[in-house]
C-alpha cells in the first residue's frame, strides 16, 4: 500500500471514530479497536515523564464496552456532547504508527460551549481479520492535564 492509500484509510478511520462519538453512537466506539488493545487518555506532561497511569485505561475491547455501559446506566453527569475536529494523520517511522492532532469542543445541556481538550492521538493501527482497519493502540495525549469537572464521554 502506498503512503497516500494509508493516509486515506487512516483519515477515514479517524473521521468515522469522531463521528460515532459526536453523534452519541458510543456503542459503536469499541468496534474501532481490536479485541486486545490499549486505549489510554493521558497528558503531554505525564507522557513525557513516562508515567503509566491514565485517566482512562483499557486494554481490551470489553473494557471499552464496559465504559460505555457504565456511562449509559450507572454514571451521573449532566447531558453534554462533543465536537471533534481531527487533523490529517502524520505517518510514523514504524509501519502501522501514526499521529493525529485533535480538538474537542464540549457543549453542555444549557448551551455553554468551551474548548474542552486538544492534543494528539498516538496510534498503532492494524488491518483486522475482517479486513477492517482498527486501533491496536490509541494513546490520547492531551496538551493539558487539567480537565474541567469530569471526562465522561471518551475523547
Amino acid at each position, binding site marked *: 500500500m502506498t503512503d497516500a492509500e494509508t493516509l486515506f484509510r487512516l483519515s477515514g478511520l479517524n473521521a468515522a471514530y469522531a463521528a460515532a462519538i459526536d453523534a452519541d453512537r458510543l456503542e459503536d466506539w469499541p468496534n474501532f479497536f481490536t479485541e486486545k488493545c490499549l486505549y489510554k487518555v493521558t497528558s503531554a506532561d505525564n507522557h513525557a515523564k513516562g508515567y503509566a497511569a491514565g485517566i482512562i485505561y483499557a486494554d481490551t475491547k470489553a473494557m471499552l464496552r*464496559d465504559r460505555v455501559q457504565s456511562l449509559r446506566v450507572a454514571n451521573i453527569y449532566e447531558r453534554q456532547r462533543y465536537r471533534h475536529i481531527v487533523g490529517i494523520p502524520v505517518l510514523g517511522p514504524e509501519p502501522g504508527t501514526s499521529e493525529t492532532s485533535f480538538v474537542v469542543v464540549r457543549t453542555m445541556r444549557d448551551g455553554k460551549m468551551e474548548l474542552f481538550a486538544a492534543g494528539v492521538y498516538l496510534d498503532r493501527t492494524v488491518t483486522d481479520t475482517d479486513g477492517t482497519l482498527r486501533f491496536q493502540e490509541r494513546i490520547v495525549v492531551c496538551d493539558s492535564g*487539567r480537565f474541567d469537572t469530569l471526562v465522561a464521554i471518551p475523547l
Partner: protein
Amino acid sequence: MITGETNADLPRGSWPAGLTRVPYWVYQDPDVARAEQTKVFEGPTWNYLCLDIDVPNTGDYRTTVMGAMPVVVARAEDGEVVAFENRCVHRGALICLDDGGNVKDFHCVYHAWRYDLRGNLKSVAFRHGVNGKGGMDDTFRLEDHRPRAIRVTVLHGLVFGTLDPDAPDIESYIGSEITARLRRVMHKEVEVIGRFTQALPNNWKLYMENVRDTYHASLLHLFFATFRITRLSAGGGVLVGENGVAHASATMGAPPAADNAYAGIRSENDGFRLDDPSLLDSRDEFNDGIQLQILSVFPGFVLQQIHNAIAVRQVVPTGTDTMDLHWTYLGYADDPPELRAMRLKQANLVGPAGFVSMEDGAVGGFVQRGVATAEDVLSVVEMGGATADTADTRATEASVRGFWKAYRGVMGL
C-alpha cells in the same frame, strides 16, 4: 410553605449552636474566602505540600500552594526538606516559575535577586551600582529581607507545611489513630505513576465534605454499590479525630452475598455486569481486609486507597465557587508487574474520568448552583446523631461534622 430552616434570626456570619447545621453563605461569601486564606491556610493548620520523593536530591525543588499562597519546597544541602513563600522580597515576582527542577540556588527572573535553597536572600544584582553610581543604600542588609519561611514536617513520605510556629506537631494534629491509618498506606517507598488536575465548579469545602461523607459513597456511586466495592451494609466505620481535623473511613471485606439493603435504590442495578471484570481484580496488599480507606487531613489533604488504587489529592481553592483538585496516582517502588497492572486498571475508578470520582466532581457543582440564593438557609447534617465522634458505621455524617468542628475552631465561627 416549607422553605427549609433559615439562619435569618441570627446575624450574618454567625452560626447556629451545634454541629448539625451549616449555613450556605459559608460556600459563597468572598469575605469568608479571604478570611480562610489567613485563618485556615496560613493559620495553625498543616497543609499538604508535596511528596518527599518529589525532591529526592539536594537542589531539587517543587512548587505548590497553601490555599492561594504560592510555595517552593526544596531539598537543602543538609538533606532537610524546606519551604518558603514563592515571592521575591524585592517586587513580589514568583521566584520559581516551573513545577519543579534542580538548581544550585534560586534567581528571581525579574531583577536577578538570588536566594539559597532555604530561601535566604544572598545577593542583589548591581547592589553597589555601576561606576560608583546608583545601587542600594549602604544601610540595606540582605538578612533583613526574606520570603516567609514555612515550617515543614515530613510524615511517612508526605511533606506538610504550616506558617504557624506554634501549631502542634503533626502527629498530635492528626491524632495517633489516624496517623497509623496514614502509615498503613504510606508504609514503604512510593512511586508517582500519574498526575492530573480536576477543575471543580464548587467551593473547596463542598469537596472536603464529600470526601468525609461516608453516607453518600454507595448511594451516588452506582458503580460502588453494584460491584460491592463499598456498601453501607459491609463492615467498616469511620474514625474522626477529637479535634475534627482528620478522618479515616474504612470498608471491610465484602458485604453479605444475599444483601437486600439496597433494594429499590437507584444505585442498586443488578442488570449491570462487566464484560471485562479484570477491573475488579484486586489484592489485599495490606493484609487487613480493608478494601477501601479514605483519609483526610484538614484543610485540604486526602489519601485514598480503593482496592489497589492509591492516590493523594490536594485541594486548591481558586475562587469562592471554584477549586482545583490535584491528583497524584501512586504505586510502590517494589510493585511486581502484575500488581502495577492492576493499579493502572483500577485507576479507572478515580480521577477526572473515574467511574466514581467523576460524580464527586459534578455533585459539588450541583450544590453550589442549588444554593445560589439560599445564603441564609441551613443544610441538615444529622445522620448518625449530632456529634463528630468515631463510629462503627458509615451510615453517619459524623466525619462531616468533624470537618466543621475543625473549620469553626480556626475560623472563630
